[in-house]
């Protein structure tokens, strides 16, 4: 299914829940159930509880920037989503939470879906080499280099950035002098 937006991944009404309780139960909540709340028996995620990789359609995770969409996937045990393209903010959020957004061609996504058909298969993913392997086939996936490094190292951006503290401080000083309006007027005029 193409254009599976983040409103589908987690409907907005669940987003006031504390993360500590886990967001996995909200994953694709309304797609998986009928209007009365009964699970659709043929929805793939309802038939297979233990999946950790999803093969997805084009423009997966489009729409709202809600990181809760990634929390729902991660808390449901998903480690990787593999598809032709992803919403930009979704993909960045995924990497920030250790979830791999691996890009494959439309044809490769199709062939993965065909291999899987109705049943999950054991899968291997090599993050550094950049391939996914199942049913004897090895399919390469694309991933931004900086994201690959981040997923492998588990780096935290805040720690990384704080190493540049002095460069940031000098940039700030020069920037607020040269960029008109860099400081809000009310703040400047405040006593």
């Amino acid at each position, binding site marked *: 299914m193409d254009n599976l937006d983040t409103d589908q991944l987690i409907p907005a009404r669940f987003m006031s829940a504390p993360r500590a309780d886990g967001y996995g139960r909200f994953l694709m909540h309304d797609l998986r159930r009928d209007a009365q709340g009964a699970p659709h028996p043929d929805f793939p995620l309802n038939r297979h509880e233990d999946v950790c990789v999803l093969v997805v359609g084009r423009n997966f995770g*489009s729409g709202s*920037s809600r990181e809760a969409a990634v929390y729902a996937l991660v808390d449901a045990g998903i480690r990787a989503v593999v598809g032709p*393209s992803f919403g930009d903010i979704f993909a960045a959020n995924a990497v920030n939470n250790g979830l791999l957004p691996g890009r494959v061609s439309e044809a490769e996504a199709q062939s993965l879906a065909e291999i899987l058909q109705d049943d999950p298969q054991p899968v291997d993913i090599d993050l550094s080499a950049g391939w996914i392997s199942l049913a004897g086939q090895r399919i390469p996936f694309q991933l931004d280099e900086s994201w690959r490094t981040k997923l492998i190292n588990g780096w935290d951006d805040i720690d990384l950035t704080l190493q540049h503290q002095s460069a940031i401080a000098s940039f700030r000083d020069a920037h607020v002098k040269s960029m008109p309006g*860099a400081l809000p007027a*009310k703040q400047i005029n405040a006593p």
Partner: protein
Amino acid sequence: MSGPRTLLDRLWSAHEIRQREDGTSLLWVDRHLVHEGSHHAFAKLAARGMAVAEPGLTFAVVDHYAPTRRGAGPTDPDIGRMISTLRDNAARHGVKLFDLDDPEQGIVHVIGPEQGLTLPGLLINCGDSHTSTHGAFGALAFGIGATEVAHVLASQTIWQRKPAAMRITVDGVLGPGVSAKDIALNWIAALGTGGAQGAAIEYTGSAVRALSMEGRMTLCNLSIEGGARMGMVAPDQVTFDYIAGRSYAPRGATWDHAQAYWSGLRSDTDAEFAKDVSLPAGDIAPTVTWGTSPDQALPVTATIPDPDTLQAGGSEAAQQALDYMGLRAGAAIAGTPVDQVFIGSCTNGRIEDLRAAAAVLAGRRAKVPGLVSPGSAQVKARAEEEGLDRIFADAGLEWAAAGCSMCVGMNGDTVATGKRCASSTNRNFRGRQGPGARTHLMSPAMVAAAAVTGAITDVRPLLRGRAV
């Protein structure tokens, strides 16, 4: 950097602190806008025992969960908790909060410009995808996720890879009853939701220049629905006139300096764009969505497409969309009965949007119920001064307080299962306005036309003889 430069190049280099070997840039953030959804990010900060690095550049507002029918009974405890958490976080970190009762409260993408916080040349972040709105001023504005919000709170910087520059040129003159919303839905329908994936769009051309700031904001707001990271319009006199005198905007000598600097924020005539698209303004009709994705849009005069005639991938999606929407291929979209209407949101909740809707509604009665939620308390006050609230009330529509309201349904303003809503919002996703809700996106004038006829209707005949 030598050679011709795009507006994106200029904005980017003015904020780049450093670039890593892998090409990712560390950028300075001039304005960080936060709403109730920031609770995850503040929790991350608290877990590290960190303070907000630049409280003076951080602004908080209650919008996503803001009750719009205030005094209509006790607030849902979950909603109350989301708002009080934002209050606590703002107070703890010394961040200015536009609270519910503040006369300057409103939707984050409405009040940023309204307060003069949004200025040309600035980098603006917010944990909301429609942050692209602020690009209308020639700012570098994009939405981010919660982990990135925490990063900006902690450091006032963000790591980003520079997007590809894309240009959409709209030349000519828009017809009567045709607005920025229609331009946006048209290019998204033409290029698809992935048509601008990852790009920074610069909108240009005589029809864009002729738009007011509010129209430019609508256009930039919807950039994300075509997959773009951001949208922008080079600042001009229209921009400067809008900003002059606003609370947080420069004044005095700084204003003169600012205007001179802002005038240079444009793409060189020979700058190159990775993708260049043209759209003749005269070809654009009032546009509505028929499906569950913003690219599933067509002129109101058209018929609903037949999934069988669409390309392989689009065919299945179109059939699923038609099933969900309860529509039939080959039928005219005009005449589709609606159950209710909604006017508001960061896309179309500004004063000009309300005026456009009121111009259609004046002296007429709505055949279906509807809600009008102004984009901000200031827009509400202004509309009331102009008597627009009376026009809405006399037409039978409910006049409510400001917030994101029925666009996203987080505050309890929702569309019931199976109900069809003509909506001036930005997303017709399944369940966006409530589980099972059916949303048709259109301009505020078109929503008003749907209200008075009870069906999706071409607004143009309803405007004849009326001043708009």
